[in-house]
């Protein structure tokens, strides 16, 4: 079972919810941080004996002795990673999307495989029982989906081998990285807050994720703040609100110390246990009431 925790707006509490869910999850679970631009899940789960593995994208390296300057590669490349200027062939490795077209089209076999470091995958163990995987984009690297795809590959292999459920902390927003992060999920859990910004970005997220046809549930964080338009929107659109986390100063402060919510009080722990059960039922095809 794979649950992706997503949100249109950043800072709604996605990571807080993922960490809390991981800590009450009944079956063995793998916690995966796919917010590779700003990975934060490890700050709450604090995995130990972390193993860091650099991750690369395959990029072209031109053998100038074989290259006939025909320009076929430069003409094909849509990303300007190879350019023919007069008789000078230049490569711009940081522009490459790794499509492999240049290597395939070169009539002289002059283009070999090189590597660009995208970032790293970190794996560790939290609290002695929750395996964690984190993708971390190299600072200055512009593209996150290729790194995310490598994290997803490792995630699927590990979960299959060790029979683990998966909890994914997805990046915020609704562009390519967010869509990449939720595509493996059986259920998408959306975290929002009852503010005008929260509602607006939540609607964008619903619009983006609905075509995927996956069951979606909602967590309203900081409930009591702002207004009740998010609740009304969920009711009108048949989106089940699975739990509400109240707006309380002690919760914000607990978070500020890197605390996992389920450790703050028994009430919060119980509501996350209930949330975990609802998600499990949704993954099995049960439709909860909106």
């Amino acid at each position, binding site marked *: 079972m794979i649950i992706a925790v997503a949100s249109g707006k950043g800072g709604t509490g996605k990571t807080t919810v993922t960490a809390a869910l991981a800590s009450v999850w009944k079956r063995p679970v793998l916690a995966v941080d796919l917010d590779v631009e700003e990975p*934060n899940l490890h700050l709450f789960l604090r995995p130990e004996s972390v193993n860091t593995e650099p991750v690369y994208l395959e990029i072209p390296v031109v053998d100038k002795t074989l290259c006939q300057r025909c320009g076929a590669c430069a003409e094909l490349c849509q990303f300007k990673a190879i350019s023919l200027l007069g008789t000078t062939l230049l490569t711009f490795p940081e522009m490459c999307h790794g499509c492999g077209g240049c290597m395939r089209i070169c009539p002289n076999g002059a283009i070999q495989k090189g590597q660009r470091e995208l970032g790293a995958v970190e794996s560790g163990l939290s609290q002695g029982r929750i395996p964690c995987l984190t993708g971390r984009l190299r600072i200055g690297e512009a593209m996150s989906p290729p790194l995310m795809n490598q994290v997803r590959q490792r995630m699927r292999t590990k979960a299959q081998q060790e029979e683990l459920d998966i909890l994914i902390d997805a990046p915020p927003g609704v*562009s390519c990285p967010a869509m990449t992060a939720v595509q493996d999920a059986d259920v998408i859990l959306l975290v929002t807050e009852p503010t005008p910004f929260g509602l607006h970005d939540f609607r*964008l997220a619903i619009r983006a994720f609905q075509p995927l046809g996956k069951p979606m549930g909602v967590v309203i964080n900081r409930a009591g703040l702002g207004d009740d338009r998010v609740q009304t929107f969920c009711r009108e659109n048949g989106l089940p609100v699975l739990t509400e986390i109240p707006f309380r100063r002690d919760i*914000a*402060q607990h978070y500020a110390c890197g605390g996992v919510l389920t450790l703050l009080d028994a009430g919060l722990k119980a509501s996350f246990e209930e949330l975990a059960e609802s998600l499990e039922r949704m993954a099995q095809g049960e439709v909860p009431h909106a």
Partner: protein
Amino acid sequence: MREMVVISGKGGTGKTSLTAAFAHLAERMVLCDLDVDAPDLHLIAEPTIQRSGPFLSGHVAEIDPAHCSGCGTCEAVCAYEAIHSHDGHFVVDPSHCEGCKVCVAFCPEQAIEFPDRLCGTWYESKTRFGPMIHAQLDPGQENSGKLVTLLKAKARDRATQLGLDLILSDGAPGLGCPVISSLSQASLVLLVTEPTPSGLHDLERVVSLCSNFRLRSAVLINKADLSLDYQAQIHAFCLGRGIPVVGHLPHDPEVTEAMVRGQAVTEGKASSFGAQVRQIWADLQPLLEIPSTPKSKETRS
């Protein structure tokens, strides 16, 4: 022309609420929302759209079923698993298509079209604060930074036309291409953070990015009273990197209340929070006035 870009790395630090307040306080300014993935500034600025246009970027492959022989070459050469067979011929899933053209080049039947990709819409608007440039990326589209670059160019053109000398931008989130594009040519980058583990962690990453590009930056700590411990860590970090901390703001429900009213925190009824934001805006002025580049022989448009 001066340009202040407000970014945060981590979401939810109050970046957009503060940008809206600065827009209210600034004079002779063009407002620009560079968070094209999940823009929110318009909820406060309430723009009246004057012009809009499609945002095209890159291409997408489309297989013409009438010419597809079903050989499967396209599926074999696609590095993005975007092509699958469907009733004897092949279909491109546009959400996975990277627009690399490899399938187009290798299709033996020349059955693959390669039209421009429509990725979103840009807007030129007016607001009670001044002119505004903004956009909305379509769901699932790649935010390559090109739309951000387009908006910045439009904002500069608008400012030049109207003789305005400040561009105030709500920057893109994260650390990738959109934020890198947001920062280009900024006179001052205001980093809004909060004293939490994630706030500090993401601040460290965006500061590295700013120093990679040798940009002048300043830090504003919002929700400063949430953790004195993390606040002290942020101060120590900024001191070590030589970045000024231009102010502290408390964790105040007034921020959300103003948002619900559709107002900037400095508008409407006087509040202590609003007064503190006014002071910070005043303190930012000297940082904004100083020329941005230490390099000679280089001018900015």
